[in-house]
């Protein structure tokens, strides 16, 4: 479904007039419409790669912040131009940085926050606040406000309306404008904060908008692994709800691995794992570490030691509940067509050995990558279970939409348990 535009042309207002304007908006101008009693959504929407590609004339405008196919195509085409490895994801922050080094003066209309993906608008957010930093760090704050009524798909349903607020400007200007944000968020409704960028940037802004009990949505595939995991661990431990899109993308891998051990006759092998290998795309390790940490947590392994392996890999030793050691190795591997998200899983191998039965080897392969490294090396003596894992290709907006559809005010306990272990797996 195509993105929907705001009902009326956004009105540019001085920041201090926004709260009063919004409180009057429904009383005076939209008496017939119902203000949705749903939730507020605050989105940090830097769209750095899109902004840079537009500046370089490699992508036509407008700038939308939406993860559209043209953007991904233009980003893939720019990767070799920037001298980056072919395994680089089209959404990798290093691409944005490299693009920033190239000259260009292009510009386009900026519709971030005004063009709402249908996957999100169908949930009828009561208030959508978009923080849109500009490439020009010194740019003054602009504040746009509009009423927004997603059209019902069918039936006599009354239009249920919300409003959008866009704050656009340089980092400094956005920080100054922050005092306006909190009064705009209703305490009576749940509020989600979607940090659609690296957690390394704008830490003050992040702290200011992500106050508990607001529910956070982050993507640990973007930016510094240590910082992303630290944020997840800290917020989950404090009782705040935090969802990680990178964790969410592991669902098909977790399902495939669980499926391999559904048969009761094979389940005992889970108590006899001796080796776990994971291959990830490029040098972003978080998704692989979350997978390893989830397995370790579910099987009751204790982490003993972790170290850096040759080739930017990660080695670790676990100990099973029965005291037997488990070797873990995660390696970055090159892929021909990298997935949209940095560090996506490419393959997983789990080897189980127990007395009295032949060793079992479970290999899971992503459908877009190869598993040659995991398939090599003396597999002939093992009972082999090999599965191909379907790769979910969804835009970030659709992924967030799932979170908004049925939210929780606490963090998924499996993520809460896996994230601290994944953080410990990162070599210092």
């Amino acid at each position: 479904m195509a993105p929907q535009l705001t009902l009326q042309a956004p009105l540019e207002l001085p920041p201090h007039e926004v709260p009063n304007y919004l409180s009057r908006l429904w009383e005076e101008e939209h008496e017939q419409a119902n203000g949705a009693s749903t939730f507020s959504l605050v989105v940090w929407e830097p769209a750095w790669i899109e902004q840079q590609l537009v500046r370089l004339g490699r992508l036509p405008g407008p700038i939308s912040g939406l993860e559209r196919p043209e953007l991904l195509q233009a980003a893939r085409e720019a990767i070799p131009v920037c001298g980056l490895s072919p395994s680089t994801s089209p959404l990798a922050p290093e691409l944005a940085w490299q693009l920033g080094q190239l000259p260009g003066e292009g510009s386009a209309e900026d519709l971030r926050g005004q063009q709402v993906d249908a996957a999100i608008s169908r949930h009828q957010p009561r208030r959508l606040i978009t923080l849109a930093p500009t490439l020009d760090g010194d740019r003054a704050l602009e504040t746009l406000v509009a009423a927004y009524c997603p059209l019902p798909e069918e039936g006599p349903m009354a239009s249920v309306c919300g409003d959008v607020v866009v704050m656009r400007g340089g980092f400094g200007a956005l920080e100054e404008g922050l005092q306006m944000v909190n009064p705009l968020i209703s305490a009576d409704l749940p509020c989600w904060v979607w940090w659609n960028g690296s957690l390394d940037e704008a830490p003050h802004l992040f702290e200011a908008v992500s106050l508990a009990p607001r529910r956070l949505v982050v993507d640990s595939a973007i930016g510094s692994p240590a910082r992303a995991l630290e944020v997840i661990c800290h917020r989950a431990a404090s009782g705040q709800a935090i969802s990680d899109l990178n964790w969410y993308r592991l669902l098909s891998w977790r399902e495939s691995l669980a499926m391999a051990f559904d048969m009761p006759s094979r389940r005992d092998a889970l108590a006899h794992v001796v080796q776990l290998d994971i291959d990830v795309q490029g040098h972003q390790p978080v998704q692989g570490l979350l997978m390893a940490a989830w397995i370790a947590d579910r099987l009751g392994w204790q982490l003993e030691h972790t170290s850096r392996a040759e080739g930017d890999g990660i080695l670790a030793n676990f100990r099973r509940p029965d005291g037997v050691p488990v070797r873990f190795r995660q390696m970055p591997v090159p892929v021909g067509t990298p997935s949209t998200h940095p560090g996506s899983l490419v393959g997983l191998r789990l080897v189980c050995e127990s007395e009295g039965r032949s060793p079992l080897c479970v290999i899971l392969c992503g459908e877009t990558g190869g598993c040659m490294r995991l398939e090599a090396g003396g597999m002939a003596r093992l009972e082999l279970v090999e599965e191909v894992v379907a790769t979910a290709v969804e835009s970030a907006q659709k992924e967030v939409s799932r979170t908004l559809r049925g939210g929780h005010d606490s963090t998924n306990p499996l993520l809460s348990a896996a994230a601290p272990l994944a953080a410990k797996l990162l070599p210092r």
Partner: protein
Amino acid sequence: MTATLTNPLRVGLRQERVISPQCLVIFGASGDLTHRKLIPALFELFRQRRLPSEFAVLGCARRPWSDEEFRGKMEQALAPVIAEDPTAWATFSSGLFYEPVDLQKDDDLVRLGKRLEQIDRIRATRSNRTFYLSVSPNYYGSGCRALAGAGLLADPKRSRVVIEKPFGRDFASAQELNRIVNGCAKENQIFRIDHYLGKETVQNILVLRFANTIFEPIWNRNYISSVQITAAETVGVEERAGYYETSGALRDMVQNHLTQMLALTAMEPPGRYEPESIRNEKAKVLQAARLADEAEPWKCCVRGQYGPGGNSADPLSGYRQEPGVDPNSTTETYVSMKLFIDNWRWQGVPFYLRTGKRMPKRLSEVVLTFREAPVHLFDSAGAGPTANQLILRIQPNEGADFRFEVKAPGSGMRSRPVDMDFSYDESFGEPSDEGYVRLLADAMLSDPTLFTRSDEVEAAWRLYTPLVELIEQQPWQLPVYPYEARTWGPAAADSLLARDGLLWRRP
């Protein structure tokens, strides 16, 4: 690590279909179904993290309970389950509310509307509501009218009604009820529940047929000679004499559960897996089904009633001796019948349906018997070569058997039948969700795939109308044969198949 007896990697993987924020309103909340099925199913969904934080249950009944009393009664009924996870119950039960409501009183409905608005505010349930009519069937129509009159069904996207069985007691009453209900809400807001469709193994009929290429080419009159569908219970009428005396096995089991199994077994492949495609095919096949002899229906149906049985250590009462049953009752506790489906796929293939209480085993199954090999090349180790059979076990020991002939060990070339067995337990080792967990979740997700549509219900009633009319107008034409408790029904039922040279499967 969470201690678990199940696959430890499986924990938490059922969260993919999370229900939208909403309030589930249960009418008849003081009744058995609420504390025996509905609240346990909701608590299970909560423990699986499939209910959002913005969720509430509003119990409604005439009794003047408070929220606290309602929570207390639910807590009492669910005590063993709560003991496993008291923290989860504390959170879940904070979303349980109660409002005394008589659906026949306008003032009560106004108060209900206000209470729902209040719950929307305190639980952020977004005016999204599922109304569950767990009330006497006599009130289904008026209940829907009352809800529509109060404007509570006006928004087709954010309101839906779940209606328990039985949906009508014959074709005319089902048609009238459909007319009323469809006048109150759109068809896609109405969820007619049949808990058999919540069973994993019933749903598996669809997957087995349409996810494999080996079955569909032979799933027709060219290869299948007959189909038997059985739902047998070991229990008697128990506490349900009041209801059962007015219903009997035909209305209680055949018109709904057995007919749903028939529809899933016999339907054409849907164009895609979406609710209307599946329901279209189910309705079509039921519209093509007929009693084997509509002009003289007593020739294709046998009724029975269980008499005393058991043994001296465990004597069992006959139906007429059960509390609440008329000592001269002619209500059937067993019924078997022969049907045909007049379409290209099934023309001439007999479908035999049977259900009964106080049978030797509790089981539900669908048995497809294939045609015999055209030439018997080999001697048989038994009385004769056995036709291939595919047995879909709905319950218990859920799974499937395929029976075929192999060479009997030895120097000769004699054949004998063997079974190739698939068992859910052995393959997955995971307990399936209780049917209500699945169906409640689907209703709250507005997914009607596993619910019966108005034309399906009417087609099912139309199919049995000659029998219903016979029982009501000329019951002597369809006598109720006694059978001893814990046997497979009256001898007349065996004759029904014997006329076709067949036997009921003895599972």
